[in-house]
């Protein structure tokens, strides 16, 4: 049986590149890329910001989450060309110099990052949550993170880390409970 290769599917993108001014993690850069490139691709391939990951490239897993003007979005479904003038925040910009953000600190402390692949997306989604709701309850956290899949942690340590960080960001010198660290006795 002869296999068809429908010519409709065969076309190499020969687009001229566009030059767009992007502001990423507070720094503005002119970037040259083919206009069909997604924000995910430009961040990783042009700006070498590989902290933003991908799990499906179809908007079905949340791994590629970044903040655009503070709002968590799926960078695999954003065209970079549409981002001119917007403020993009990636995981690389989350820490303040060598001082980790309280969320990063809490994730590290509780082992909320296992393989770490979904972690950047979770951290950014959680950061946006805590900006709007500094004192979220467990259900608020579940709702806010319901667009990020994790296969390692069962989400439990992630919730606990968000709660720990939220308390600390409200100025409470919180420490994790024994059952979080050691299990129930």
């Amino acid at each position, binding site marked *: 049986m002869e296999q068809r290769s*429908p010519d*409709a*599917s065969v076309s190499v993108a020969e687009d001229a590149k566009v030059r767009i001014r992007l502001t990423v993690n507070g720094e503005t850069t002119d970037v040259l890329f083919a206009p069909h490139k*997604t924000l995910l691709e430009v961040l990783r391939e042009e700006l070498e910001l590989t902290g933003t990951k991908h799990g499906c*490239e*179809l*908007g*079905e897993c*949340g791994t590629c*989450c970044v903040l655009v003007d503070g*709002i*968590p*979005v*799926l960078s695999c*479904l*954003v*065209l970079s060309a*549409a981002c001119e003038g917007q403020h993009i925040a990636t995981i690389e910009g989350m820490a303040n110099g060598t001082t980790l953000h309280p969320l990063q600190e809490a994730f590290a402390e509780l082992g909320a990052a296992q393989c770490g692949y979904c972690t950047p997306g979770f951290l950014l*989604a959680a950061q946006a949550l805590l900006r709007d709701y500094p004192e979220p309850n467990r259900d608020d956290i579940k*709702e*806010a*993170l*319901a*667009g*990020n899949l994790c296969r390692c942690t069962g989400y439990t340590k992630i919730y606990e880390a968000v709660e720990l960080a939220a308390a600390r960001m409200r100025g409470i010198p919180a420490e994790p409970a024994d059952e979080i660290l050691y299990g129930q006795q």
Partner: protein
Amino acid sequence: MYVAGGTDLYPNMKRLHQTPKTVVSLLRVPEMHEVTTDETGAIRLGSGLTLTEVSEHKDVVTGHLAVAQAARLVSTPLLRNMGTIGGNLCLDTRCNYYNQSYEWRKSIDFCMKKDGAICWVAPSSPRCWAVQSSDVAPVMVAIGAEYVLVGPNGGRTVPAESFYHDDGIEYLTRERDEILTAVKLPKPNGWDATYLKLRRRGSFDFPVLGVAAKITWEGNKVTAARIVLGGVASYTQRVPEAETAVVGSTLNDESISRAANAAFKPSKPMDNTDFGLAWRKEMTRVYVSRALLELRERRRS
């Protein structure tokens, strides 16, 4: 091709369902982001509002809870931050023989919705059976919303119901070059509505059944009703038999049961979404009952 949030179009483009040479973003048209309330109390939502904006907007939450509910049930928080209300109302029909990669579709020799000649869900049928999968659309039909369309020949307003068409390929009655610019939600006036969604998980998933119900009350009597099914046909499917079953009643158990049975009969899901079709059909009864019960309880409290 026009694009708003891109959450429907770009995955389709990546899988070569749609292959536009150029896309034009509508996101920076200011009018499409406006929410206005006219003198009659009707709300006009710009179609470029994100689903998050719609679900959180004060006027929508207070006056049109069902719209807010439905918008909030779409996919994930991340996607709702991007996807627009207009995009959701124009959502491409879905089918798990169609929403697959080019290579996957090639392995079954494609289907009539793209590149092929047959509908794999119903191979002997001459038409495409892809499924209407918007959560908000059934609500719009139920509450009698109107869509504002703008094209080269000017604008027109159409009832939501007539916007959808029972065909997996030609699923909208919109002209090719028309843009959905706004939705007019009627003034809440003695009626109440709700939306229930059935799916495997609490997020990500498209509906495998959606039930939108609107009841107009006079005292404790139902004077009018609209019951609309989503996710089981290529269009937002009104079930007049179920509506008739409750009009004139107090929405007592018996009338709810009659409506549920009436909705069950014409609910004909096909084997092209998650879950088996027999169960989805069976759930029509349960979800129509629950939607009506919710409206009754709300009225009584």
